[in-house]
């Protein structure tokens, strides 16, 4: 059994999780990564996607939109703008997120990143099975 690292998932409104996890799969802006014990200290931004934490209680998945992750010595802190446990995810909420994103795309200065966020959201929707 591998060692654990402290996994914290916080959104501006509440703390969603704070458990010791053996591995955390992160949808990073530049690609997915998995943080395990002994990972080099890293800060990365998030893209919309599914974040998974493997702990003693099993694997928990969360849908996250933008934010960032701080991997430190022995801890992973995820600061997500919005984070929803996958079980609570509904098609309605997904559509809401997509509607928000398309609104943002309409006014965005940086079209590329807005389009990418949109594509990521759609991919997330597909991955979540809606």
């Amino acid at each position: 059994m591998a060692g654990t690292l402290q996994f914290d998932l916080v959104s501006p409104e509440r703390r969603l999780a704070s458990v010791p996890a053996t591995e955390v799969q992160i949808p990073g802006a530049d690609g997915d990564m998995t943080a395990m014990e002994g990972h080099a200290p890293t800060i990365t931004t998030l893209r919309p996607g599914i974040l998974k934490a493997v702990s003693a209680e099993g694997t928990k998945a969360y849908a996250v939109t933008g934010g960032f992750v701080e991997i430190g010595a022995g801890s992973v802190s995820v600061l997500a703008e919005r984070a929803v446990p996958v079980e609570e995810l509904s098609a309605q909420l997904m559509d809401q997120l997509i509607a928000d994103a398309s609104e943002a795309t309409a006014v965005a200065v940086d079209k590329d990143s807005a389009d990418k966020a949109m594509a990521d959201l759609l991919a997330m929707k597909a991955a979540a099975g809606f």
Partner: protein
Amino acid sequence: MASLRDLKNRISSVKNTRKITKAMQMVAAAKLRRAQEAAEAARPYAERMGAVIASLAAGQGNDGPKLLAGNGRDQVHLLVVMTSERGLCGGFNSSIVKLARARANELAAAGKTVKILTVGKKGREQLKRDWSSAFVGHVDLSEVKRLGYANAQSIAREVMAAFEAGEADVVTIFYNRFQSVIAQIPTEQQIIPARFESTGATALYDYEPSEEAILADLLPRGVATQIFTALLENGASEQGARMSAMDNATRNAGDMINKLTIQFNRSRQAAITTELIEIIAGAEAL
């Protein structure tokens, strides 16, 4: 002297008032607990965000992003004044407005341009007399049942758009920091150019994509987070202020009822005595 009937009416109306203020106090107490929990829940995010931005910003020097370094000017000041939507909360709104007004006067005296964005209608009403010409916008939160991050985001977007467009050089928010039910501290906080307290010790991190890209991504979120924290603190303060104001009012009403009751008893006694004297005098005259 007021008649007995008048006194009786007066007493019952004060009793009704006391019931209402007591109810408002209890509602405020319940809301305060919720507001405090919300503020508590938001703290870890805000702290982490501040710490990471501070450590990133420390390595940037003066030529960092505009949100951090400012746009090099100091002419137009945008004051975001956060107050409540409802009254009956003691000096809560007045203390924020007082602070904001003092700052606005100071800036105007120094030849700066002052713009004001109000959040919550009570502050707007109070500022209208002197500063209505400086109003650039108003955020209405009266329909909002539970403050969400989205509310803060929309304010942040508005403020940052003004900054980007060169319509504001420095943005400051005014709100009440919650200390306890009886103490709320009017606070002034500059959010653009952003100031983040550096914690000093920073670990060496790998950055993905790059340090600059992350900072550029985080700063707008940092601004929104600061506004969100301020809104939550303000919400808790409002309920705290209302609770103590209503507690005072309830107690005052109690005192008043006691006084009126004594007065009522005395005048009733006086009326009885007068009647008795009349009867006795009448009997003696026979």
